[in-house]
């Protein structure tokens, strides 16, 4: 434990101490009687119990934290896909990750892959070379599971867009955006116990582009997207 880690705690304690000092001086000027004290305590306890009941009735339109088993299953699915993608084992791709697929006919013998809209690649790309003598390129786009703090946000992360411009495959990153969530916890964050901490349930999935390109086509990949 670093000694500097104590600073936020000491800071909070100092603020709390200041508040106590102010509260003490204020309370001396207020003449509280027993009846008022009892009334205050009863009302407060009533509000707390009411809050517990009201919370139960608030419609559950929020995302739910997935359990440990489901988290492990999703993580396993991602690992299997990543491995299969890296090894060009198309038959092992999980079809649930497939977003879209199409064929594109090239005019020339060169396919240029361009990534734009982000300083770092927003998609992983792999090429399967085929023996075809035609000019057709088959494109498949996948997105694997994305979890943050145990919340499945896969469908909420926009994908890169793919456009064809004269034998150029242009991958454009989505516009910068933000997703903000509240997650409530019954536990003390500072005392998170055990190895199954929800905060650690994160799976950082990716967008994958799988191309089937005839061998006679020359591919230029300036941004280094190709997964070798």
């Amino acid at each position, binding site marked *: 434990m670093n000694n500097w880690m104590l600073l936020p705690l000491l800071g909070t304690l100092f603020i709390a101490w200041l508040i106590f000092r102010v509260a003490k001086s204020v309370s001396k000027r207020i003449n509280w009687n027993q009846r008022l004290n009892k009334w205050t305590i009863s009302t407060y306890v009533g509000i707390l119990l009411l809050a517990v009941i009201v919370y139960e009735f608030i419609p559950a339109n929020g995302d739910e934290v997935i359990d440990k088993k489901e988290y492990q299953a999703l993580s396993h699915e991602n690992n299997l896909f990543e491995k299969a993608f890296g090894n060009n084992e198309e038959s092992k791709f999980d079809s649930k990750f497939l977003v879209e697929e199409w064929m594109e006919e090239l005019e020339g013998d060169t396919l240029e892959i361009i990534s734009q809209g982000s300083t770092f690649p927003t998609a992983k790309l792999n090429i399967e070379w085929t023996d075809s003598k035609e000019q057709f390129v088959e494109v498949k786009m996948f997105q694997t599971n994305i979890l943050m703090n145990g919340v499945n946000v896969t469908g909420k992360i926009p994908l890169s867009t793919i456009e064809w411009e004269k034998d150029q495959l242009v991958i454009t990153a989505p516009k910068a955006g933000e997703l903000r969530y*509240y997650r409530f916890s019954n536990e003390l964050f500072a005392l998170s116990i055990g190895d199954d901490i929800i905060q650690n349930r994160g799976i950082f999935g990716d967008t994958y582009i799988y191309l089937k390109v005839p061998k006679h086509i020359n591919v230029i990949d300036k941004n280094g997207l190709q997964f070798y």
Partner: protein
Amino acid sequence: MMFLSNSTLGEVVKSQVEFKLNTYMGAVASLILVQIIGLLFSMNGTGSSGTSINNISIHVSIVSLDIVYIFVALWAFVIGNMITIKTNWHSDFSFVGTRLSSSLANIIVLCMISVFAGVTTFLSNYVLRVILLLFGKVDYVKSSSIFDDPLNSILNIGVMIAFILMISAIGYFRGILVQNNKIFTFLLPVLLITILVTKSGQKLFQYVFIGNESILILIVKLVCISIVFFALSILCSNRLEVRS
């Protein structure tokens, strides 16, 4: 010495507890103020984590009880300490009792107050949940409630009560020591800081609070520490002078 009636230790302690509970009703009411201030500080979350995927930054604010708890812990320390101040200590002389009965009554009152503080602190999180969900504009993650996970909730309430009890026991012990000798007012903070900055002190701190396999083990440790401090307090209180 002769008395008109002979009371047992249990009866004396019981009457002292009833008296003290009424006396400290105001202190319990002040807990509400402390919790409300803690809740206001918790509105933006007590922890957060974030990452960026596909140009989208994902930010999760975790709303837990940590800040409320720091305030309540400090309150518990003040209450533990307050019980030992002379004006409160002298009120015990209204009863026919001993130092032991008075100490036992104080400990029982602190236990009862700790239970109340632990339960209300846990429940105060739900006030925050309702306010943020009804008036906040941020998406939320449906988190488990008392009814979804009652066993875990009970364990969490237990750990909160045990923590508050331990802090109030430390406060009580500090108060008794200061009543014995004023030099402890300065010695104890120095000792605490020394423990926190030394390696062995940090190891002890980590052994108690961090790396526990289950909440139950933590609760047992906290209760044991509380018992040690209360026992030390009883021993030290026997050395206190009689009322002058």
